[in-house]
C-alpha cells in the first residue's frame, strides 16, 4: 500500500510538470502569433476601425500586452497558479465562469457519445469474431474503415438534413433537453465507435490464437462463452491503453460537433478563443484539457492491474 502512495505522489509531480508545460507552450505559441487580441477585438465587425492609437495603447496596457514577454508570462503564470485565468479579452467574461458553464455541456455530450461508441464498437467487434460467414465478417470489419473516413462535419449536416430539417424529429440546435443531444451524440459516436471496433477486432483475433483458448475449447466450453468470458477480458487491454486517445478525439470532435449543432461547450469556446487570439480563454481551455488527459491516464494506469494482475502499479 505504501508503494502505491509513493506511486501516486510521483504521478502528481509528473502531472504538475505536464500542466506547466502545456501552459507554457500554449502561451509561447499565442505570443508568437502576429497581432494581438486587442486589435482583433477592435476589428471584430470586419470593418475598418477608427479608434485612435492612444486609446488602443491604453487598452493594450490594461491587459499587460505592452510588457515584455517574460513579464507577461510571469503575470499569467502567477495568476494561473492561483487558478485565476483572468477575463476573456473579447467578452469580458471571467474565464473560470466560461469554463464552468461550458464543461458540463461538453462532458454530457462526450460521455453519452463514449457510451454509445462502446456499445456499437464492442458489439461490432464481437459480431465479427463470432460470425462464421466470411463475407459477413468482411463487411462488418469494413464498416469501421468507412466510418473513420467520414468527415464528422459532413455526417452532422446529413443527420440534420434528414432528422431535423426533413422529418422534424430532433431540434437542429441548442442544449435544451435530451432530444437536442441525440444527433450530436450520433455524430461524435460514429468515428469513436469505429476506432474501438477496429482495435478490439484485431485484439480479439490475436487473443483467439493464443494457446489458452485451445485449452478452454478442449475443456468443452462453447465459442461464445470463451469469447465473452475469457478472450474479451484479455483483449480489452489495448482499448484501455487507447482511452487517452479516445478522450482526446472526443474533445477535438466536440469542436466540430458543437459548431454544426450550435451547442454551447468547451469546443465552441476553444474555437472562438483561438480564432480571436483570446489568450486567457485559450490558456484556460489548454489547462483544463491537460487536466482531463492527466486524470484519464492516471485512471487507466490504476485500472491495468485490476484487469491484468501481470501488470503492477508499483513501477
Amino acid at each position, binding site marked *: 500500500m505504501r508503494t502505491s502512495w509513493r506511486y501516486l505522489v510521483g504521478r502528481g509531480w509528473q502531472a504538475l510538470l505536464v500542466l506547466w508545460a502545456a501552459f507554457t507552450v500554449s502561451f509561447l505559441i499565442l505570443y508568437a502569433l502576429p497581432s494581438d487580441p486587442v486589435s482583433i477585438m477592435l476589428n471584430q465587425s470586419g470593418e475598418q*476601425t477608427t479608434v485612435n492609437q492612444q486609446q488602443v495603447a491604453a487598452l493594450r496596457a490594461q491587459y499587460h500586452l505592452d510588457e515584455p514577454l517574460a513579464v507577461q508570462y510571469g503575470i499569467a503564470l502567477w495568476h494561473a497558479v492561483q487558478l485565476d485565468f483572468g477575463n476573456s479579452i473579447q467578452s469580458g467574461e471571467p474565464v473560470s465562469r466560461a469554463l464552468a458553464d461550458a464543461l458540463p455541456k461538453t462532458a454530457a455530450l462526450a460521455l453519452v457519445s463514449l457510451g454509445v461508441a462502446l456499445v456499437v464498437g464492442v458489439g461490432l467487434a464481437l459480431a465479427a469474431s463470432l460470425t462464421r460467414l466470411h463475407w459477413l465478417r468482411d463487411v462488418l470489419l469494413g464498416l469501421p474503415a468507412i466510418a473513420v473516413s467520414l468527415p464528422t462535419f459532413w455526417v452532422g449536416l446529413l443527420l440534420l438534413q434528414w432528422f431535423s430539417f426533413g422529418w422534424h424529429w430532433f431540434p437542429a440546435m441548442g442544449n435544451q433537453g435530451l432530444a437536442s443531444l441525440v444527433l450530436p451524440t450520433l455524430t461524435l459516436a460514429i468515428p469513436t465507435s469505429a476506432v474501438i471496433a477496429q482495435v478490439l477486432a484485431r485484439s480479439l483475433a490475436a487473443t483467439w490464437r493464443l494457446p489458452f483458448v485451445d485449452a478452454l475449447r478442449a475443456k468443452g466450453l462453447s465459442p461464445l462463452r470463451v469469447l465473452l468470458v475469457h478472450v474479451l477480458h484479455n483483449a480489452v487491454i489495448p482499448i484501455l491503453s487507447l482511452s487517452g486517445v479516445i478522450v482526446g478525439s472526443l474533445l477535438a470532435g466536440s469542436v466540430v460537433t458543437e459548431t454544426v449543432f450550435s451547442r454551447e461547450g468547451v469546443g465552441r469556446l476553444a474555437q472562438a478563443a483561438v480564432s480571436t487570439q483570446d489568450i486567457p480563454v485559450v490558456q484556460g481551455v489548454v489547462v483544463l484539457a491537460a487536466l482531463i488527459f492527466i486524470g484519464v491516464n492516471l485512471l487507466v494506469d490504476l485500472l491495468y492491474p485490476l484487469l491484468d494482475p501481470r501488470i503492477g502499479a508499483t513501477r
Partner: protein
Amino acid sequence: MKHLSVPLLALLLTACGDPQGSVTAVDVSKPQAGGTLRVALEGDPQCVDPQQAGNNTALNVGRQLVDSLTDQDPLTGAIVPWLAQSWEVSPDSRRFTFVLRQGATFSDGTAVDAAAVKANLEGVVALGARSILGSTYLAGLKHIDTPDSHTVVVEFEQPNAQFLQATSTMTLGLFSAQTLALPPGDRCQGQLIGSGPFVLKSFVHNQVVSLKRRDDYNWGSSLAAHTGKAWLDGIEFLIIPESGVRLGSLASGQVDVNTGVAPQDEGVIDSQGLVLLTRANPGVVYNLALNESTKLFADINVRQALNKAIDRAELQRIISRYQKPATALLASSTPLYRDLSSLLAYDPEGARKLLEDAGWKPGADGVRVKAGERLSFRLDYWQQTPILELVQQQLKGVGIELRLNKSTISQVTAIQASGDYSVRFLNLTRADPDVLRTVYDVAGYNINNRQPGEVDRLLRESAETLDNARRQVLIDQASELLLRDGHAIALVELATVLAHAKNVHGLHYEASSRLQFFDTWLQP
C-alpha cells in the same frame, strides 16, 4: 467548413420542399400582439453592451434594449425626435442642446433625465477604445451641462456636426446609473438596464440571448409605426454559426429570421417561399485605400490609372444580386449620397496612357516596368469577397500586377500597424457622410498616409455645418477629390441580406442597416 455545407444543403433543401405549407392570406395592416421571435445570429455577440460593441450581431441585440436621444429616418436620413423631443445646434456645430421628453424610465424605475444623458455620454468617453464606435462619435467632448432635469447641453472642442446623427445610434443609447456603475466586462455579459422596449432576460455565450418585452414601455421613436409597448412577447437570438444550418432551420420553421444569409443561399431562399430583406449598408463602400507614403502611390498618375482600369459593371456579375457596384465613395443609402459614377468609368486606354506618361513601359511578362522596377504591389486582406480576384485580372489588363495575400484579421492588422503595406481593402458602415472625414482626413485616421491638402479642408468644413445644402456641396467636392485623385478606389457596396418566414411582419432596417424589432409582429 462553410464552403462545404452550402452547396450540399442547397441541393438537399431544394429536394425537400416547403415544410410549412402555404401561408393563408392575412390582413397585414392589423398587427397582432404576442409570440416570441426566434432570430438566428451567425456569431456570438461576445459583448451585448451596445455602447461597447462593434459587431453587427451585438448591435442588433443592443438596439432592442436601449432608446436613443434621436432616431434617423432610413429613407431620408433626417434626424427625428425620440427621447429628445427637440434640439438646437449652435451655428458652428459645437453646442448641442437637447430637450428630453418626460415620463420615460429605465427598467429599474429611474427616470431618463438630463443627469442620465450626461452620465451616459461621459461614460462612453471613459470607456475609451472599449467603445469601438463611440470613441469616434464623442471625440473632443468638452463639457456637458444640465441646466434642468430635462435639458442637456453638450459642448465639443471642435465643430462636430456628425454628433447629431451619432445620438440616433444604439452606441449612444442610454442606460441607468446602476448599469453605468458596473465594470465594462459585467455589462458585456448582459447586466444592462436600458429604457428600451425589451429587457435582457439571459445571455448564454454561443447559445442564446433572450429578451422579454417591457409592458410599461410607451416612448417609442417618432418613426415607429405604433405607440405603446412592442408587439412581440420576447425575442430569442439563437447563435447558429453554420450558414447551412441557419438556412435549414429557417426553412424548417425552427427559427423565424436568419440575419446571416450567405450569397450562395439567396436562390434557394426564393424557392423555399421565404422572404429576403436587403439594404445597402450606408457609409464608405468597399474600396482600396492607397498608401501614398510609398514611392509607387505617391504618383497621382498611377493612382488614377488604377481607378480607370477597373470595370465595375463586370464586378456585378460575381457579387450578390442585392449588392451593387460603387457609384461613389459613399454607398447609395448614405445621407447626402450623390451619384459620381462618371468619375468611376472604365477607361483602360486612359489608364494605359497615364502609366505611359508616368514612365511605366510594358515589360516582357506584360507587367509594366520603370527603371528596372515592376509595377507590382501586394494587398493583405482578410475579408470574404469574390471581387478582388476579378480586380486583379482587370488591373493585369493594363499592365499592373496586384498580388493578393488572403490572411487572418490578426496578421493583416499586424502588417498595417507595422506600416509595411501599399494598399488596404476596407469599408465602414455609418449613416452619416462624416464617415469620409473619419477615415480619410489627414488629421483623423489618415488612411492614405497623405500630406494635408484641399480635401482635408473640405472634409473639416463639412463637419462644421448641419445645413444640408452647404454640407452637400462640401461632401460632393470632397468625394470628387478623393475619387479623382485616386486616394480611394471605390469598388462595390456592402449589402445586408436577411431572410424571414412569411408570418413575420413589420421587420425593417434602421438607417445604419441594423434591425429594430419594435414594430415587428408574428402572424399566429
